[in-house]
């Protein structure tokens, strides 16, 4: 029974116009049927001979039911492309197999096999996604990843150890979780607030391109001067004062770059790094260029003492334009200190060591106490030349300690 | 009629004084036909979908003055609670549905109410009525609704107040048939024409049509010819209405004509009519004063929902 109309589901056979054995042509009307809408004819699809009639007059058949069979030649099948009984049976078997499969899986709904045939040659066009996923080393952090990292208080630096298995080597939430599980097996202790504060400051500072240059300085004059003072200024204080005076002459080396502007110091407030338990604090001495060494002693001692007792206020540690650090107190001779995130310079000094120093005058090596000065600077604001100038100035000022 | 005229005069002056939010639409000139329709209907049994110029009909059908003043003056106590305004007000639970701005839409709605009554077995003796203007007869909704009412043989009375202008559009640009009442034949229903300025004529024709509908005569269409005596809304001065229309027969003020008819026919004396006017003016004033004192809707107290159902929906 053909599909005789959009909403037609069945039709009643009114009259059979052929009998078994009749020869028929293609498009010949052989059965008259009645639908809800009208009386219509069922026509043949090809030439052939009527071999069987299954339809009965007066009975209603649904669309798709087999009404009869024609005997046709193979050429006719090829010419017209009609379905033969064999090909129909093959289709039915496939259908039955699919239906059976549906029932076995006990799906909530069963999918019928005889759905429309999709044309496989139609290639769907789907818009691509904006980020090129094939880029190697892609470090895109998705909102989900970022939210998870925030939950755990992690920064990008923290996950640098994680191997990424996502697109382009990206670290996924699953990678992170695997890594954290792996770390569970290692001994660990919670980080103290001081540790976290230092970590955060160093992380932020490190986002700039920092470079370090070094210059040895002979300390004998300073040491001699110091022996004669009461109270005795700390060695670091001599360095502080020399640094401040040198900066006063070259203030642009302490400039701070923000966007396209360089902010210059308005007051030479210099910080001093004080090692405390599990961390470092940096109290700031004010207007170091305007006060003499002896005038600074009280302020310096007070700040260092309060720093060690963890009694510094926010104000005490803010507003500096540069920092001085004496890692010589730990016995270290060289180092590459890192400036505070809001500063661009840090001047470090290592331990003084007795060294043979060449003297042009006597053309011999003479013993002297020498220490390495290391200046780390933000290379966006200062270059090697500027840094060198500054360091040389400091070294020169330290040879005349009474002028400090 | 009188009450409607007095009320609407008041509304007009309130509008001009800036006391009303939104538009004001008056039925000046339409009181005779509208009032006749409202008076022929029985509240509690019949249903009536008024349109924008049916103040007289509403009052005759039983709507309170307060409903009108409250809605216009933005009181939260009004039937629409400020969510809709002016002539969109209605009380569907009392058989007077609230119109929407799309003209013609109420025709199938009244048909539906009558259809439901039939299914419930309560249609016997009931009538449903709605009022449209000449402009609304051009809408698809009017056509579909009236045709459907005719096919379903519902007792519906449609009053077409042909006031000769749909906003600024004259009849010549609205329809091509000589008389709107001829359309009734096209729908297979009864059609009547009446002089909309003549109260006694209107009352007679409307009464007859309503009776026919009640007795199973199917839909009835009444075309009342009159002139709109105000602008389309109070924001409009109606300057496009030609002066000869105002001077013609249909340009007569039906309230004046009716007053004359009352006196001539011995139904009331001039004094009585004056007394009615005073009495109604006082009523109107009282309704206006009360509405003016009431609170406006509070946006912070609204529940801001358009659905009555809570989801997920668990049927009881």
């Amino acid at each position, binding site marked *: 029974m053909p599909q005789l109309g*959009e*909403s037609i*589901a069945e039709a009643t056979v009114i009259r059979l116009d052929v009998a078994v054995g009749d020869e028929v042509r293609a498009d010949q009307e052989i059965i008259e049927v009645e639908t809800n809408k009208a009386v219509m004819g069922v026509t043949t699809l090809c030439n052939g001979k009527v071999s069987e009639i299954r339809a009965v007059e007066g009975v209603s058949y649904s669309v798709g039911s087999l009404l009869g069979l024609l005997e046709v030649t193979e050429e006719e099948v090829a010419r017209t492309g009609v379905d033969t009984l064999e090909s129909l049976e093959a289709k039915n078997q496939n259908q039955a197999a699919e239906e059976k499969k549906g029932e076995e899986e006990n799906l*909530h*709904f*069963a999918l*019928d096999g005889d*759905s*429309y045939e*999709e*044309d496989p040659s*139609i290639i*769907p066009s*789907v818009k691509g*996604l904006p*980020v090129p*996923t094939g880029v190697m080393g892609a470090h895109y952090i*998705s*909102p*989900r*990843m*970022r939210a998870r990292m925030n939950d755990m208080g992690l920064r990008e630096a923290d996950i640098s150890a994680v191997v990424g298995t996502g*697109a382009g080597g990206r670290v*996924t*939430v699953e990678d992170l979780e695997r890594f954290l599980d792996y770390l569970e097996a290692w001994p660990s202790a919670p980080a103290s607030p001081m540790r976290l504060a230092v970590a955060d400051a160093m992380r932020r500072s490190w986002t700039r391109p920092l470079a370090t240059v070094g210059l040895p300085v002979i300390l004998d004059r300073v040491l001699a001067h110091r022996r004669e003072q009461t109270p005795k200024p700390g060695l670091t204080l001599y360095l502080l004062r020399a640094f401040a005076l040198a900066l006063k002459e070259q203030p642009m080396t302490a400039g701070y770059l923000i966007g396209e502007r360089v902010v210059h110091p308005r007051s030479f407030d210099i910080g001093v790094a004080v090692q405390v338990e599990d961390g470092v604090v940096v109290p700031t001495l004010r207007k170091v260029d305007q006060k003499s060494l002896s005038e600074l002693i009280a302020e310096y001692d007070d700040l260092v003492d309060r720093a060690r007792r963890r009694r510094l206020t926010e104000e005490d540690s803010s507003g500096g334009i540069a920092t001085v650090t004496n890692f010589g107190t730990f016995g270290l001779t060289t180092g590459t200190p890192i400036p505070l995130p809001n500063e661009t310079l840090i001047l470090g000094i290592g331990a003084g060591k007795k060294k043979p120093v060449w003297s042009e005058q006597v053309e011999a090596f003479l013993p002297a106490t020498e220490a390495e000065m290391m200046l780390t600077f933000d290379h966006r604001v200062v270059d090697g030349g500027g840094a060198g100038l500054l360091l040389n100035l400091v070294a020169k000022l330290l040879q005349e300690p009474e002028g400090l | 009629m009188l009450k409607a005229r007095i009320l609407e005069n008041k509304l007009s002056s309130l509008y001009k004084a800036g006391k009303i939010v939104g538009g004001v639409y008056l039925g000046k000139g339409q009181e005779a036909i509208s009032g006749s329709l409202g008076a022929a209907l029985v509240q509690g049994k019949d249903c009536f979908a008024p349109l924008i110029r049916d103040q007289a009909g509403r009052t005759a059908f039983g709507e309170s003055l307060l409903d009108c003043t409250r809605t216009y003056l933005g009181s939260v106590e009004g*039937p629409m*609670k400020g*969510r809709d305004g002016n002539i*969109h007000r209605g*009380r*569907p*639970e009392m058989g007077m*549905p*609230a119109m*929407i*701005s*799309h003209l013609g*839409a*109420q025709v*199938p*709605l*009244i*048909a*539906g*109410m009558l*259809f*439901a009554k039939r*299914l*419930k077995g309560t249609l016997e003796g009931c009538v449903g009525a709605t009022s449209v203007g000449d402009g609304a007869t051009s809408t698809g*909704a009017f056509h*579909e609704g009236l045709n*459907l009412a005719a096919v379903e043989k519902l007792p519906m009375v449609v009053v077409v107040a042909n006031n000769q202008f749909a906003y600024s559009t004259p009849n010549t640009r609205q329809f091509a048939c000589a008389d709107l009442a001829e359309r009734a034949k096209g729908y297979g229903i009864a059609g009547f024409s009446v002089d909309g300025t003549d109260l006694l004529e209107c009352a007679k024709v409307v009464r007859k049509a309503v009776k026919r509908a009640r007795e199973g005569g199917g839909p009835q269409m009444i075309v009342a010819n009159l002139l709109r005596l105000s602008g389309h809304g109070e924001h409009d001065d109606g300057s496009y209405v030609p002066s000869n229309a105002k001077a013609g027969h249909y340009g007569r003020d039906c309230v004046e004509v009716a007053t004359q008819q009352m006196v001539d026919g011995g139904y009331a004396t001039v004094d009585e009519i004056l007394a009615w006017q005073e009495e109604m003016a006082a009523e109107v004033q009282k309704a206006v004063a009360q509405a003016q004192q009431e609170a406006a809707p509070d946006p912070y107290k609204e529940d801001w929902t*358009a*659905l*009555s*159902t809570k*989801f*997920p*929906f668990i*049927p009881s």
Partner: protein
Amino acid sequence: MSVTYIDAIREAQEKLLREDDRVFLYGQDIASFGGAFKATKGLADAFPNRVFDCPISEDAMIGLAVGAAIEGMRPIIEMQFADFSSVAFNQIVNQAATHFYRTGMPIPITVRLPSGGTPGSGPFHSQSMEGIYAQYPGLVVVTPATVSDAYHMLIDSVKLDDPVLYCEHKFLYRWLKSKSINGDYLPIGQARIARPGKHATVVTYSAMVHEAVRAADRLQADGWEIEVVDLRSVKPLDLDTVLASVARTGRLLALGEAFPWGGVTSEIVSRVTEEGFHLLDAPPQRLNARDTPVPYHPKLWAAHRPTPESICEALRKLLSF
């Protein structure tokens, strides 16, 4: 023994007519003819004076329904095709949808919209109008995808007091079969996980649920487990279930058969982005039909709407982000 989707619709109406005197059916060719798709076959005979043939007046049909609802009835209006409901647009969105808000009286009408495309049905017999109606406050829009939902949601739609647009899918009418009508019942307003997964979520409704499941089956061969969420009702939208799914998978594809501008898929994506931004591993994607009227020729039609192939393609792109 199997029940088709259209059988379920017919049986639901039968149950409603039997159990609730307030229900009546109004539509073109639905009485003795039984409806263009036979959704009301036999009902006019079984329930005399409850099933009516009406003139071709979609506007008046809905106007009548609203009026009848005011008088306490619960009409079911059959639009012959969803596409023709545009003639009734005014009555649906301005008369029915605003009535409760304006007057406090809800309008319990149910409008059945045979929606969606079938091969050869063309531009005016294939539309999916959920997005347009969902835009208007005061309407409920449901889109059953299973035989059980077709049955239960029609009954619930008539039971609830607000106007419901019941968008039944024409393709599913005879194609979708189930062993019985009584699958698991979910109330209107809750979405269902049609297929659990963990790599990506496809949120969709109606016939596209089946296409999504087929696509998911294909991707399973490559080791991907795709979760498919059947919204069941477009409005109200069950955002909680959608967000819970995206929380599990991190990737979202909103899939629909309707036109691409705005509509249901846009609503899903914007809501998930608003409230579930932190759940996403990749930008949320949409897949809809093309921005043209629905073509008539089956070959064109097959390339106009999403197919399991195009769904797989979209998912692969999403998964590799």
